[in-house]
């Protein structure tokens, strides 16, 4: 990388971004090119001590020059000679048509995890010879039993190789009967003896060789057979604040433990006092008995006040309590009587769903109130401005558009803050919920597809208006020539817009025929859009505005 100095020219730093000219060797003087060599010490990425290996050097020399690339010698693989590949790998593979997707683990693909050895084989053959042909133990079943024994040993005595724990047969039989069919019981003892003998041969280690895993992190660091260590958790960054935090936590923990200990000490003391009290009372009772006897003997008459407790016990206890409260010697323990959620301590914990539901209720209620307020405020008000605010749902019964069909078929997207993420609202539920809000005036396209709807309202001077919405437009697209006419038109609010219509088109004729003839005193203006009367875009101009006499 670092060009060797000693040349007369000062070498500019090589910038990776800088475009360089690309030349062929024959485009440059050959002795000049040769003199340019050796400017860089090449970084190979191979370990330094290995870089000098002769075979590598030879091969690298081959890569850079016209010598054939040298091959690095390595012990080669050979086809196995005395090995029946087809017998051992017998299953045939069918290539699936699509890319394979597979997530089973090796353990799931290899059946019984115990593989019997040659030694087991010898034993099993001899064993089966002694048995009648119909009670022979198959290799599969033998392996199942051995697997069960090995598993049980692993669970019951994971350190068997160290402490030489022998799992007794009863334990083995019990777990065997839990894991496998009862038919295996008849072999249990014999196989157990074989298993035990084999374990003894291998110093009570698992019968199948296993990898050496980490046991003492400090000691087997240098043992090359120990592999696949768990990676330690990435250390959280140490800061002074974190240190202080931990000290506080430790201090608090210590205090709480002290309190706990004190509490137990005092409880034990209380119990001791109780015992003493009992003993004293018993003593008093015995003494009184003696007094009574003495009285009887000496024939002393009198009230037996001295034989009973003068002061009622209850009051005494209360006194004691008062006294104790006054002094308060024990460390002050405040047990909160309510949890943060305001429920008594012993009540069930609140579920998240409940909290969410409650919050939603509150929000809904607030919304309802707002809607009510808005409705009151808007009472009797009819908005005929050019760009009316989006109507609040349910505003003024009379002025609302009413759907011509029973319900809207609007899809609402699933709420982003679902009360339960796994619980998607069912489609039916979505249908029932009417759309409460619209976030902006509906788009023109949307309108044309919506259900037809009508609204009746009174305008100035008591005129009756019928507004329609969602009617199928007569002309889907304005003709090019038509739209061209408006191309240079300026919007002018003062000017009364003129709407193109063909008075002889069949649609218009049919429409007009449905309107009853009425007195000319009142007219019903029918407008299609929500912005009655005025529309500036040519696309909206396709709507038809008809003035007709309307009934009173």
């Amino acid at each position, binding site marked *: *990388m670092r060009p060797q100095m000693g040349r007369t020219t000062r070498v500019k730093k*090589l*910038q990776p971004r*800088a475009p360089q*000219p690309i030349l*062929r060797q024959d485009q440059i003087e050959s002795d000049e090119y040769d003199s*340019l060599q050796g*400017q*860089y*010490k090449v970084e*190979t*990425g*191979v*370990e330094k*001590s290995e870089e*000098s290996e*002769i*075979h*590598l*050097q030879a*091969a690298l*020399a081959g890569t*850079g*020059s016209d010598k054939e690339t040298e091959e690095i010698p390595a*012990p080669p693989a050979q086809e*196995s*000679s005395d*090995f029946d*590949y087809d017998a*051992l*790998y017998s*299953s045939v*593979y069918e290539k699936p048509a699509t890319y*394979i997707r*597979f997530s*089973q*683990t090796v353990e799931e*693909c*290899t059946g019984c995890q115990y*593989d*019997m*050895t040659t030694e*087991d084989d010898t034993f099993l053959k001899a064993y089966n010879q002694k048995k009648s042909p119909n009670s022979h133990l198959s*290799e599969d079943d033998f*392996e199942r039993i051995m697997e069960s024994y090995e598993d049980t040993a692993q669970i019951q005595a994971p350190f068997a190789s*160290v402490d030489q724990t022998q799992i007794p047969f009863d334990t083995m039989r019990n777990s065997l009967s839990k894991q496998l069919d009862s038919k295996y019981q008849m072999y249990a003892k014999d196989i157990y003896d074989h298993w035990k003998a084999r374990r003894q041969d291998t*110093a009570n280690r698992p019968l199948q060789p*296993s*990898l050496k895993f980490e046991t003492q992190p400090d*000691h*087997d*660091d*240098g043992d*090359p*057979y120990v592999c*696949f*260590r768990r*990676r330690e*958790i*990435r250390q959280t960054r140490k800061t002074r604040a974190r240190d202080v935090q931990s000290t506080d936590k430790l201090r608090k923990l210590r205090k709480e433990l002290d309190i706990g200990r004190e509490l137990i000490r005092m409880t034990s003391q209380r119990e001791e006092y109780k015992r003493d009290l009992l003993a004293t009372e018993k003593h008093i009772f015995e003494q009184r008995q003696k007094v009574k006897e003495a009285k009887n003997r000496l024939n002393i008459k009198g009230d037996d006040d001295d034989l009973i407790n003068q002061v009622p016990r209850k009051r005494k206890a209360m006194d004691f309590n008062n006294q104790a409260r006054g002094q308060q010697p024990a460390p002050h323990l405040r047990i909160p009587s309510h949890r943060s959620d305001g429920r008594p301590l012993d009540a069930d914990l609140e579920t998240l769903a409940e909290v969410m539901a409650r919050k939603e209720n509150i929000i809904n209620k607030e919304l309802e109130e707002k809607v009510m307020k808005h409705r009151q405020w808007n009472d009797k008000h009819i908005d005929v401005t050019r760009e009316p605010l989006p109507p609040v749902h349910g505003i003024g019964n009379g002025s609302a558009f009413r759907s011509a069909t029973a319900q809207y078929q609007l899809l609402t997207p699933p709420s982003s803050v679902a009360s339960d993420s796994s619980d998607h609202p069912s489609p039916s539920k979505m249908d029932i919920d009417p759309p409460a809000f619209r976030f902006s005036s509906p788009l023109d396209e949307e309108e044309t597809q919506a259900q037809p709807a009508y609204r009746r309202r009174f305008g100035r001077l008591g005129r009756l208006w019928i507004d329609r919405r969602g009617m199928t437009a007569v002309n889907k697209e304005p003709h090019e020539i038509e739209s061209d006419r408006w191309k240079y038109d300026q919007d002018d609010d003062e000017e009364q817009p003129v709407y193109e219509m063909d008075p002889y088109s069949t649609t218009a004729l049919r429409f007009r025929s449905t309107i009853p003839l009425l007195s000319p005193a009142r007219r019903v203006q029918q407008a299609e859009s929500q912005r009655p009367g005025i529309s500036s875009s040519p696309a909206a101009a396709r709507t038809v505005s008809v003035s007709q006499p309307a009934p009173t």
Partner: protein
Amino acid sequence: MTTGALNDSGTGSPAPKQKGRATVDTLSIGCIAMVEKDGRPRRAEILSIKETKSGRQFYCNFDNFNKRLDEWVPTARIDFDQDVEWPSVEKPKDGKKNAPPTSKKSTVAKKNVTKRAVPTTREASAAVSDGGTPHPWTDFVDSQKPTPGPDGEEKLTLALDLDATPGAEDDDPMDVDEVAAKAVAAKTDTQEEFSREEEIEKLRVGGSMTQNQAEISRIRNISKVQYGKYDLYPWYFSPYPEAFTEEDVMYICEFCLRYYGDIKSFTRHRHKCTLQHPPGNEIYRDDYVSFFEIDGRRQREWCRNLCLLSKMFLDHKTLYYDVDPFLFYVMTSRDEKGCHLVGYFSKEKESADGYNVACILTLPQFQRKGYGRLLIQFSYELSKIEGKLGSPEKPLSDLGLLSYRQYWTENLVEILLEYNEKDERCSIESLAQQLAMTTADVEHTLQALKMQVYHKGEHKLVLPTKLIERHKASKEKQKTNPKRLIDPTLIQWKPPVFTASTRTWGW
């Protein structure tokens, strides 16, 4: 070039080593002797000694030869007429001397480690010329048979006693454990000189390691592996259960990669094993190969088995930590038996250093068939999909470096020729972007190929005639014999996303 690579030799040379004549009986572990290799004497370090029927054998590591060429050598190949270098004696512990092989040596590890750390004089420049001579592999393979035969004395007279496991023949396993623990502790002590902490830290963040100080791991422990249709002869140590070091053959199921020392067990396993492809999702398929993506966390056993297998052929791979933080991209070839593992590369789920490959291997039976290029190309195709520039984790092995060099060279020359024909300029960064390589890798490759020059006050890229010719030749060859390539349109893959907890917990 050769001389450049030698500049680490002879620096900071320590106190001169003691030299002298040795005999078969005094030649001990840690000695450096002249041993015949490929028909000529070479300096070799003795790493282990064993008794066989035919006499004593020495496990030798040859100077400037890769460890995979280490071998058991009979006495006849050692030149006792020349001086040997004795291991430098350093205050022998527990009064034990530099004794002949049969005695216990708890200081062996220390000596060897010391030797390793001190650079010895290398003789590479002299040896370069004959690098390409053919190797008598049959001899080599035969020499690797580990056991002396049925007379069954001690197999490794001397295997480093430090690492002796609680032996089955010992009566009291507690005692043995203690001994083993002490031994290991002693070994750990000696290693502290080499900043154990730093080494472990390095292991923690990467998938490969620069050196494993533990001595036993310098010696190949598995002699032969039966895998699929093939017999494999391992190159390096792999931490399979120690019991397998005593087996002549270890059997590995080629689909689940489980390992068996007992042929009956292996047969039984094959009877039950239903896997016919790597246990993950197929993310690429053409008529030649398939790629599977396997999550180390979900397929822990399979990925561990894969690591154990590949460790036999990767010197710098470490199995120190578990497989959870890695994804494994496994290339298979298909036939009527299933999808056979050809090679793989592992990749950190989140690499702080921007590596797109941690370890990469083509199994020996598939090497030199162009599969390595496919693996490398695939790793870069994934980086392209991720929109990242990637680089393989260092250190690379010798074979790894060659494969990458070849891939980088081919692709850079291809692009640069186009620029040259159009007479356009090109920046290193643009090359990096087009190939999803890091700018550092582009720079180093251009420098290694002698393409980066500073000429007339300007940095220029020069395409050497030899490379152009070679490129044309390979283009010509491709017309008749097309090179296999990954078709990026057949990749069905999205960069996996791991949850916040996986990131926090580091796997």
